[in-house]
């Protein structure tokens, strides 16, 4: 029997009620405040700009307007037009300029309004910035962060050129680091790490998550790049996922708990370089793995995780690793067919039950 990898097509998407309590990351006792994912990113930018005068922001309409999603709002008033710099519509040159500035010691944090537009900047991102240090035998380094909102959310997205998830393109490029946080806590801690990192870092922000709330420590903290985060421990089945899909996985885990299925949720919050150990360890423990990504299926990011399981846990597998991915299609505008483009809680629940039943 062949287990079909399923895209979400068949399963009508349900817009879930995601409670803050679904993911708790701040240890009890540590003073904390509630922030949205968007506020958390802004706070990280603000703190790093205060800490290091070499950090500056560059992008289209990031000034007074605050960017397409308001992430940089108020930073313009605080730091002014030099350090919160509006640019012409020139994606490739925004990235290339960041590279030039980084080579001479700055730490630019740049924004491309939607990851969908980054096709215009692939040369500067993947062919120049990612390779420059290597090509020059270490004569330079390129410490920039490229912020790119990506992804969708049932009923929220805007068709084929404003809704994609493209982490796979960048994760396949040696020399880049790729981050995709799922919570306010991770977003702030990873952004600070990305800014301090000496390499070009692709920082993907899931648009639908901007309004999600979560607890963040009052005090300063920085999270390590290149580590998966076990968002939930479980014994029966491992769900490897990232971004918005983490929330579906957590909600699914809650539901499955009631059915005595104990789910471990691994958040690949740094997509590349990948922390293989954490995935391998969990797969060896549970022997059952479901991969969940928003990106479209073929040649997608879930595959790398699946092969890591293959290489680290083959003889422990009790069922085939299952892919649950975005529909392999451009993203449509109409609700009736945008529904089901992305996996949702129900789809994760079903996939976990299937691997348990296999």
């Amino acid at each position, binding site marked *: 029997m062949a287990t079909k990898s399923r895209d979400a097509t068949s399963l009508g998407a349900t817009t879930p009620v995601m409670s803050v309590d679904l993911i708790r990351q701040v240890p009890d006792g540590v003073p904390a405040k509630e922030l949205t994912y968007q506020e958390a990113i802004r706070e990280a930018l603000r703190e790093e700009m205060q800490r290091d005068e070499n950090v500056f922001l560059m992008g289209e309409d990031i000034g007074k307007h605050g960017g397409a999603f308001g992430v940089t709002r108020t930073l313009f008033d605080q730091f002014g037009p030099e350090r919160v710099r509006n640019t012409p*519509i020139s994606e490739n040159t925004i990235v290339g300029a960041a590279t030039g500035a980084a080579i001479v010691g700055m730490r630019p944090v740049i924004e491309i309004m939607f990851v969908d537009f980054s096709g215009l900047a692939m040369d500067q991102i993947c062919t120049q910035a990612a390779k420059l240090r290597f090509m020059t035998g270490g004569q330079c380094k390129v410490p920039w962060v490229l912020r790119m909102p990506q992804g969708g959310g049932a009923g929220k997205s805007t*068709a084929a*050129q404003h809704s994609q998830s493209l982490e796979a393109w960048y994760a396949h490029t040696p020399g880049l680091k790729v981050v995709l946080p799922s919570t306010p806590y991770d977003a702030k801690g990873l952004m600070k790490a990305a800014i301090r990192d000496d390499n070009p870092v692709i920082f993907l922000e899931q648009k639908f998550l901007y309004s999600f709330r979560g607890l963040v420590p009052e005090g300063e903290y920085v999270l390590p790049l290149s580590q998966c985060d076990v968002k939930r421990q479980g014994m029966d089945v491992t769900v490897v996922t990232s971004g918005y899909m983490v929330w579906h996985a957590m909600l699914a885990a809650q539901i499955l708990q009631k059915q005595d299925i104990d789910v471990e949720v691994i958040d690949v919050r740094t997509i590349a370089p990948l922390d293989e150990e954490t995935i391998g360890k969990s797969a060896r423990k549970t022997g059952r793995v479901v991969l969940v990504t928003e990106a479209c299926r073929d040649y997608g990011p879930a595959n790398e995780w699946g092969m890591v399981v293959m290489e680290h846990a083959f003889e422990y597998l009790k069922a085939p690793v299952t892919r649950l991915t975005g529909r392999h299609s451009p993203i*449509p*505008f109409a609700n*009736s067919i945008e529904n089901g483009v992305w996996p949702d809680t129900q789809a994760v629940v079903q996939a976990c039950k299937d691997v348990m039943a296999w």
Partner: protein
Amino acid sequence: MEIDRETLLEMYRRMVRIREFELAAMDLFKRGQVKGAIHTYIGQEASGVGVCLALRTDDLIAGTHRSHGHNIAKGADTKKMMAEILGKETGYCKGRGGSMHIAAFETGSLGALAVVGSGIPLAVGAALAFKMRGEDRVTVPFTGEAGSNTGNWHEGLNMAAVWDLPVVFVLENNHYGVSTNIEDVIKVKDLSQRAVAYGIPGVRVDGFDVVAVYQAARQAVDRARRGEGPTLLVTESYRFEGHYAGEPEVYRSRAEVEEYRKKDPIPRFRDALMGEGRVEPIELDSIDNEIRQEIADAVEFARQSPEPDPSTAMDYIYA
């Protein structure tokens, strides 16, 4: 250039049609019935209408994120337009595209691409095909002033110039790219000067004056049709509404907007038509009424239309 009465009335009709369509679309948006964003053409009607009335149906436009007006100016059916904006199967793109990708191929379009500048190469390539096949058809990519800073724009004008292709590059200067004023991203004051870099004519015209736009477009289009190559046509107008419906507009003053609203191309043209005494107020009123009814019907049609059937989700990915 003498413009006949029918054409003048058609100019008026299409400008009003665009205006009423946009007002209806904004109204639907405010009532939460439109998903995603809509970018209206209110204030810029004279630009699209002046240009498109200088075109034949078999000439092709390439649209942008702001192309409701371009399509209607080219002759698109407002029913299928409105249906597309509501994501219905009866829309021009069968609900797959929505507002930002709305394109009426039946009245001469190459599509509407929401990545700024990306429509330009398509127009260049279609014009190349026309030239290779000896067809006297013309293509018109629309771009906003901020779009002239993209690499696409430069590469496209250069390629069309060296190959003498039948393209009229229409650069619509509404002074803003989202929140960014043109002065902050373009140093040259007269955008038509950018034509110098390609050795092609650059023309600048009042984008609130539909007749002036029409006449300038006619010259550029005729030149292209004669095989004499591309022209850069800059139309100067203004975006009366936010970048998208509901956009806060923190970057400009109400006063500035009000100043420009005084130049509204529709009442201005209305007065001009009546002033010349060639048209009776009643004719224009009846046009207004026709259009309002047409748009109301379009909204009703769109509302009643079905969304795409989920079973068709995978259609149109491959031919």
